[in-house]
């Protein structure tokens, strides 16, 4: 990693640090924020307004367990999260993360009371300017989430669910939420753009929707009693006509036995899943971007003489902790650290822009020698993890990280190394790593295939297999969850890449 300390040689007399000690005060936070904002503007970072909230560690654990949502409905799974976070924090097994930042407008960033001034400055640069500009600029967030409406929508959701608990009992709501949460990953539109959310509109439309939905559902099933077997002969067109990828949406609109309030809850879970979907697709980029900017902004301030050497030592220590990538054989290894990969990539791109080698010119003719601020901004706006890695992972970085690819095929006895960091392997490593970030490959591709409208009303799901990978052992339990929502029998069949249906048909 290129360490930027060129400015460090500036004479001590020139230094006028913002603060000396490690204690923070609100005035100091304000001054640091001012300075960081000034430098961020200098680099052209475009951000939403920030709301920086100072909280205690207990509140941070609270925020953790509700997946960072400032307002959440009640569910035992958040309690479970709370208990485990609380325990590991108390035992000192884990420091709480620097920060939680919420993609809303204003963008809310939490600072922990216990942090030193250095850490607070780092968090401000990381969250309030790094993440914030990413949320505002990246195309996925621009299309799929609405920073203006999310807080209102969460308030609406919590109130609605609390009301349902009073009317229908906690247990009934909990069961429903369990099933919805299980299907959360299959509750997103991958290609359709969702409508904007807002509290006022939601409330107004909710009643309307209740009545309308119920009438639609009734309509779909109405033909049933009159036909009685006659429909069996003339095979009606398959319903749905096309396979549907959004299971929760399909259930919300078509499940025959759900009551209106249940449909609304399915919808709430689906909307929240959709809101988090871009974050799941841009983890490397998002964290890499924020880390790159806290590093760049803080270093810039140091070069201006606004920070002490002690500050920088502490800063660099936590910075290096965050971007540590243990090798695969280490017992600390748990996958590729998104902070490390993202930071290294942005840092490497800047290097390619500023000091390109002959190899870089061959691989990145457009990037080499260009204005790094503009090029990085372009990358941040127009990519997600998968395409970002496919586009920008350089041979030098593959060498630095010593990346290699293996294939684990259940038809072979042994694992095979298919590519390493050499000329023959760069492209393959890059392509495989990019695929690794494709959520479509990582999670099973399951779609609604058919409903037996005129028969037993059963629902058939299809799992379109990728690389012959089967479903895991949780499948029967998952089918029970789907069946609970659908109200009738649910079965799943796996279809391999040739189009043949696999024999392992499970039912729930």
């Amino acid at each position, binding site marked *: 990693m290129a360490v930027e300390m060129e400015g460090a040689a500036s004479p001590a007399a020139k230094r006028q640090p913002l603060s000396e000690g490690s204690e923070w005060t609100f005035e100091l936070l304000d001054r640091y*924020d001012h300075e960081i*904002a000034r430098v961020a503007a200098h680099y052209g970072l475009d951000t939403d307004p920030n*709301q*920086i*909230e*100072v*909280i205690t560690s207990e*509140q941070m654990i*609270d925020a953790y*367990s*509700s997946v960072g949502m400032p307002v959440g409905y009640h569910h*035992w799974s958040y*309690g479970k999260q709370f*208990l485990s976070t*609380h*325990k590991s924090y*108390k035992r000192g097994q884990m420091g709480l993360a620097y920060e939680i930042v919420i993609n809303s407008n204003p963008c809310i960033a939490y600072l922990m009371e216990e942090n030193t001034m250095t850490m607070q400055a780092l968090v401000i640069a990381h969250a*309030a300017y790094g993440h914030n500009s990413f949320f505002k600029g990246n195309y996925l967030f621009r299309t799929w989430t609405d920073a203006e409406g999310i807080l209102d929508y969460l308030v609406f959701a919590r109130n609605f669910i609390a009301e349902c608990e009073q009317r229908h009992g906690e247990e009934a709501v909990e069961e429903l939420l369990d099933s919805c949460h*299980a299907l*959360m990953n299959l509750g997103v539109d991958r290609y359709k753009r969702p409508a904007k959310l807002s509290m006022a509109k939601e409330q107004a439309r909710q009643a309307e929707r209740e009545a309308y939905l119920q009438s639609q559902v009734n309509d779909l099933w109405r033909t049933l009693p009159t036909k009685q077997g006659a429909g069996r002969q003339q095979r009606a067109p398959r319903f749905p006509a096309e396979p549907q990828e959004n299971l929760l949406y399909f259930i919300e609109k078509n499940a025959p036995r759900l009551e209106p309030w249940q449909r609304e809850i399915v919808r709430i879970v689906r909307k929240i899943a959709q809101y988090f979907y871009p974050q799941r697709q841009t983890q490397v980029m998002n964290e890499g971007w924020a880390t790159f900017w806290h590093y760049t902004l803080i270093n810039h301030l140091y070069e201006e003489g606004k920070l002490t050497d002690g500050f920088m030592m502490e800063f660099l220590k936590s910075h290096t902790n965050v971007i540590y*990538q*243990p*090798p*695969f*054989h280490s*017992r600390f*290894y*748990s996958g*590729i650290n998104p902070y490390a990969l993202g930071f290294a990539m942005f840092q490497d791109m800047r290097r390619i822009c500023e000091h390109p080698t002959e190899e870089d010119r061959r691989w990145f003719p457009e990037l080499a020698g260009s204005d790094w601020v503009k090029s990085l901004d372009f990358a941040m706006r127009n990519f997600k993890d998968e395409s970002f890695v496919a586009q920008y992972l350089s041979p030098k970085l593959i060498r630095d*990280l*010593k*990346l*290699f*690819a*293996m*294939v*684990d*095929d*259940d038809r072979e*006895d*042994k*694992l*095979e*190394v298919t590519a*390493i960091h*050499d000329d023959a*392997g760069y492209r393959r*490593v890059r392509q495989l*790593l990019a695929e*690794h970030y494709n959520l479509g490959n990582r999670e*099973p591709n*399951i779609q609604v295939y058919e409903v037996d409208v005129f028969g037993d009303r059963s629902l058939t799901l299809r799992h379109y297999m990728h690389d012959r*990978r*089967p*479903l*895991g052992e*949780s499948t029967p*339990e*998952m089918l029970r*969850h789907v069946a609970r929502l659908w109200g009738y029998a649910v079965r799943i069949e796996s279809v391999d890449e040739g189009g043949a249906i696999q024999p392992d048909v499970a039912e729930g």
Partner: protein
Amino acid sequence: MSQLVDRRLSGKNRSAVNRQRFLRRFKAQIRKAAAEVVSGRKVADLERGEKISIPSKDLSEPSFHHGPGGRRNIVLPGNREFVTGDKVDRPDGGSGGQGEGGSPDGEGMDDFVFELSREEFMDYFFQDLALPDLVKKQLAAVPEVKKARAGFVSQGNPSSLHVVRSMKQAIGRRMAMAAGPRDALREAEEALEALVARGLGASPEAEALREEIEALKSRIAAVPFIDTWDLRYANRVDQPTPSSQAVMFCLLDVSGSMDQDRKNIAKRFFMLLHLFLTKSYERIDVVFIRHHTVAKEVEEEEFFSSRESGGTVASSALELMRDIILERYPSANWNIYAAQASDGDNWEDDSPRCRDLLVQSILPLTQYFAYVEIEAKEPQSLWHEYERVKAASPRFAMQRILTLEDIYPVFRELFRKKVA
């Protein structure tokens, strides 16, 4: 421009509801884990929270995911010696070189561990014993307190306003606030008198002095008679009610027929009795006496763990208890409670002797003596003799216990007496 907000004082414990939901949802598992914990605890060590561990597979949140098999491509960092085309053995655990290390403190990764608070833990303890709610409440309650006077404070509710103190305070404040102007007034008046004496009563200086005097007088008058910060309130603090000391004797039969299950029931019984006593007495000593043919005073660890073979002579324990009372716990200073647990086996000839010991030397000294017979098939000689004791003394209670739920009725007796 960013906005800084201090949220430290608002909204703690936002997860409290979710925590309750979690506990409710996994009641069965937690209860099982809590029961195991109770078996591992000391008799006098019930009232604190506990780490509870339940298998994490019970509380997983499922999702569709891939199982093992098929063809998987993996990209890993930190290559050392591999070149393209190398074949490597599949590591245990499957996924390309990954493998979770065990956790350093020896807790399995498969367990979900968390802390129960004292109240929550007690709740689970009571559930097993089928206690009525009222009793649970009494047991879980904190010791009784009495209000005691503790000086005066500047904040309080109106009913504890102390008038005399407040007035005193007001007088002091009025004097202090008016002191400056009053001095100035006196000086001005003296100056005016001097002027008048010199016949300059109508001069501009005299006019100015008169105006000043007026101003000072109105300033003095404007000092409020009583103000909010004069108010003083009587302060009262909680003081625990004085309570005396008690000693609890645990008598356990450790002959061959008492197996671990029976001992566990006996342990619950002792724990509950101890808990009852802690509500009434500030200091409690516990004496453990185990016996088969001979009795011995032991430490708690030994008390529950040891198992002897051979016959039973219950009177040996009673004799030892009597001796200990006479030696260490004079009944004038101590409230003496005893709980005896046995499976009912005793030497035929010994039982009448037990009765005599109880009636003549032990019961007169004790507050209460409870006898439980655990999982006995038929009432035996000891039981019959004790029935005669029970008829003779209201301080004696006896009960046959088959399951944990049977423990409570013994305490109901004891409890009724307390309430009355």
